[in-house]
């Protein structure tokens, strides 16, 4: 069952449903102006279109502009070709060209992003089929939900840790003890020394025996 009448044959009579009519007007008017604009760009035509909306507002499109087209038509005068007018028109055309270029770029970008979106959708679908935790949560049982909850909470902690790590890395370049150090061998009290848990306590061999007291099991 089709959702909309697009690409379906539609009868050429006034639309019976009023809200459909409003929507149709809006869409088709927009499309009409787009086609007119393209005709002007592609073929150098000069066009004027006037359209009254169902709500009695008036929409108009004109190139170079609505008023000159109407005047030209009503007075049956050939277009004036003064030097100034031509200059103005040249400027205007250059601006229009730029806009067309920009519009084309945007449209291409949009198309690319849409394709990317579709690819991402496919990935999601594949993932959902493969792993139960990727499926929508409405389909998960209570135990699965609890599991997933736990894993996500853990992941959240790790993300926060990694973020802190990055912050520290970026703001505090690591201090190394060496010739350039002006501290004369004294370790600044807030230096972070990575602690290796493997060499501590019962299995530890880093410390001489006499030093194990107090260090050993506390950290294990």
């Amino acid at each position, binding site marked *: 069952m089709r959702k909309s009448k697009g690409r379906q044959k*539609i009868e*050429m009579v006034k*639309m019976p449903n009023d809200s459909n009519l409003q929507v*149709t007007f809006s869409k088709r008017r927009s*499309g*009409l*102006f*787009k*086609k007119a*604009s393209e005709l*002007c760009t*592609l*073929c*150098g*035509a*000069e*066009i004027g*279109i*006037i*359209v009254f*909306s*169902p709500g009695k*507002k008036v*929409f*108009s*499109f*004109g190139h170079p502009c609505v008023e000159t087209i*109407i005047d*030209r038509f009503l007075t049956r005068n050939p277009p004036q070709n003064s030097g100034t007018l031509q200059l103005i028109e040249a400027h205007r055309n250059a*601006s*229009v060209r730029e*806009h*067309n270029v920009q*519009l084309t770029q*945007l449209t291409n970008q*949009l198309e690319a*992003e849409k394709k990317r979106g579709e690819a*991402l*959708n496919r*990935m999601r679908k594949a*993932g959902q089929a493969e792993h139960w935790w*990727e499926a929508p949560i409405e389909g*998960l*049982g*209570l*135990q*699965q*939900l*609890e599991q997933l*909850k*736990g*894993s*996500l*909470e*853990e992941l959240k902690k*790790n*993300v926060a840790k*990694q973020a802190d790590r990055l*912050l520290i890395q970026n703001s505090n370049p690591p201090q190394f003890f060496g010739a350039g150090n002006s501290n004369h061998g004294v370790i600044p009290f807030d230096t972070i020394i990575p*602690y290796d848990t493997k060499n501590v306590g019962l299995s530890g061999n880093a410390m001489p025996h006499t030093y194990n007291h107090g260090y050993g099991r506390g950290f294990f």
Partner: protein
Amino acid sequence: MTRKKVKLAYITNDSARKATFKKRKKGLLKKVSELSTLCGIKSCAIIYSPYDSQPEVWASEHGIQHVLGLFKNMPEMEQTKKMVNQESFLKQRIAKANEQLKKQQKDNREKEMTEVMFQSLTGKSLHNLTMMDLNDLGWLIDQNLKNIYRRIGQLNKVAQKQVQGEPAAAKTEGTMVGSTSTSTTPSEMNVDTMQRQQWFMDMMNLPQENNMGFGGDEMMLPFGDNSHNALWSNAFFP
């Protein structure tokens, strides 16, 4: 009709331009006519081309003088309110396309980070993520957790009601088993979960640790067990 993409610029080839003009002019006039008929409105179109000294004109019933007269009789502000030329019309289209693009990019970003989230759950390292990635990821995790808490609450309510003997509200839409019962019983869930756990434990080739019992309440997904899973990044656990 041809579906070749046409470049939005003046067609320099004379014959191609003339052919395009004929086709498109015809199509344009047809569209104006359709718009008028379908919506029961008054309209007109005036087309000047280098190929004819006389303009090509179309108008709805009553003719072009009627429409032009109606137009000119409107106060100037009303006339110009919705008036556009090439430049302003293109600006409008550019603004709209920009809006659509930003929205699509935002949606894609969320989808992308969802993939990252699921990959991280199975052990992929967080090392390659930028600060912005981490922020977005954190936000996404929160969104998911919110939904999960809510859902758990719903299911618990249902379970409570069953215990009290009331007919439970059918809030479980589309459970995996596809049964028509309003909720899955605990024993069903256990069996299902156990089977799945067995499956991906085999997949991950993890040793069958004694402490990896099933059904425990501190049970995490097996790949979340940091000390045993070789894939999990050890960066945060020195």
